[in-house]
């Protein structure tokens, strides 16, 4: 398909005099190739622009040694900038001073929220916590059953007082779940919510009402790594609509380059905390910005 970024940059640098500073023309040519590579990796256009502008700043006049393979040197700069933008070191979950810690999940339809709820529950339980899963998606057909099955697999209680499939009020369920968690001595509450579109004002209001009912310590925005240019509009909508404290990238076991990671990070300013990497509950990891940077660059 496409040449790797490294090949393309090598093409540019064959013209470069041995050992020298990058001229403006070199920088422009390089920037064009990086722009292309990022667009092909699904980084959103406004984010590409901002990123490339910053990169040009840094590359202008940079010392590049022919002996050390200038293409690799520039890629190293790009990689470093990407890692920095993606968040440097991974952030840990924020826990409440007075338990229970409440984690609310939000995102588009089918992004991987319910699966993540199961994964988080399993992971936190293995660390000695007593999580409670809350079935507050009462809309999508059989979302409640799905969470019950996952809770069963994780060995974690699922609070599901309403059957769902259009029956029950998710805000009440969410509110009552906190009381239930206190009674049952659970120290973490994970609230699964229905998928919703950023432009669905009514559903966004519902998300706000759920949030206000549970006062979460974390609102995790779950986004599919395959998402393209829409990542910006959607991340903005959830940022402004319900508020986001952290991001989870899902379906990273696929072969999408995952440029959405950069877009979401750029738009929300919030850290990407976890990577979801499969359908099974154990397919879950903390987020590694360095791996993500390499992936976006096709390395």
């Amino acid at each position: 398909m496409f040449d790797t970024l490294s090949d393309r940059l090598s093409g540019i640098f064959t013209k470069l005099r041995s050992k020298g500073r990058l001229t403006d023309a070199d920088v422009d040519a390089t920037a064009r190739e990086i722009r292309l590579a990022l667009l092909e990796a699904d980084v959103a256009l406004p984010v590409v622009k901002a990123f490339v502008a910053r990169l040009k700043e840094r590359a202008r006049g940079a010392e590049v040694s022919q002996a050390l393979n200038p293409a690799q040197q520039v890629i190293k700069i790009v990689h470093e900038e990407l890692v920095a933008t993606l968040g440097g070191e991974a952030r840990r979950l924020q826990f409440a001073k007075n338990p229970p810690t409440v984690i609310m999940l939000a995102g588009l339809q089918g992004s991987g929220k319910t699966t993540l709820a199961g994964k988080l529950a399993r992971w936190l339980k293995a660390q000695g916590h007593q999580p409670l899963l809350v079935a507050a998606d009462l809309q999508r057909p059989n979302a409640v059953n799905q969470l019950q099955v996952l809770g069963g697999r994780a060995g974690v209680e699922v609070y599901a007082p309403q059957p769902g499939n259009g029956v029950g009020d998710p805000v009440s369920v969410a509110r009552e779940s906190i009381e239930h968690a206190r009674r049952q001595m659970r120290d973490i509450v994970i609230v699964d919510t229905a998928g919703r579109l950023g432009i669905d004002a009514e559903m966004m209001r519902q998300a706000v009402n759920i949030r206000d009912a549970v006062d979460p310590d974390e609102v995790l925005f779950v986004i599919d790594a395959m998402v393209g240019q829409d990542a910006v509009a959607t991340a903005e909508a959830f940022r402004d609509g319900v508020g986001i404290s952290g991001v989870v990238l899902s379906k990273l076991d696929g072969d999408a380059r995952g440029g959405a990671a950069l877009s979401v990070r750029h738009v929300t300013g919030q850290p990407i905390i976890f990577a979801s990497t499969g359908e099974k509950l154990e397919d879950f990891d903390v987020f590694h910005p360095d791996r993500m940077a390499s992936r976006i660059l096709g390395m």
Partner: protein
Amino acid sequence: LSRDKLDDDTWDEVEETLIGADVGVAATTDIVGKLRERARIHGTATATELRAMLADELVAALDPQMDRTLAARPQDGRPAVLLVVGVNGAGKTTTCGKIARVLVADGHTVVLGAADTFRAAAAEQLATWAGRVGAEVVRGPEGADPASVAFDAVKRGIDAGVDTVLIDTAGRLQNKVGLMDELGKVKRVVEKHGPVDETLLILDATTGQNGLEQARVFTEVVDVTGVVLTKLDGTAKGGIVIAVQRKLGIPVKLVGLGEGPDDLAPFDARQFVDALVGADA
């Protein structure tokens, strides 16, 4: 030359409209190249004219003459068999329900085959849809062989003399070789009853460039005959289907416009393109 208001900014905007809609760099470069050529020949002078020309170019790229009807009607007294495939969470199960709804409303009888025996509560979800729209569901025990459930569903459809059998399959990422092999087997086993009339790839409109790879690999494995572009009710434009049509010649047949049973529509190239270029016009 002074007549020409088409400055670099205008061309950049055109390019950004396409890239921003997930049309992709390769298809965008090609389309903009053709457009430049046409603009030169026609002496196109204004950005408004250019927009119209761009829309025409995109409609042409979508091959509007192509047959987009769904092969869902019975033939020779045998039910039509449709296989529904795609990556995780794209909207397969929902789309099965919606298609069944349309068929039932037209007076047809439908069997839904729950060949997703893997995902938690997937069969229940399809059963809920069957109940909603008045279709029969055939399901196996959890963890059952999906090919045998699909086989049984078609068998039930034939025995009961229904018009259409829709087979819902588990979501799978196209780079998972084992899961793709399993899907190939589902199709081969179903074909013991006779040919599959339609294999629909469900593509989420929010999908970026990976959508092309999805279409390529699924087609290689199960010979996709049509695309359903879901979640077009959101802010995503779904431009990747232009690349899919150009590269692979697979037409979009239906679009998903919501989570309800009636939120399904035939694909209309002109409408799709207008929405794609319209927002920035």
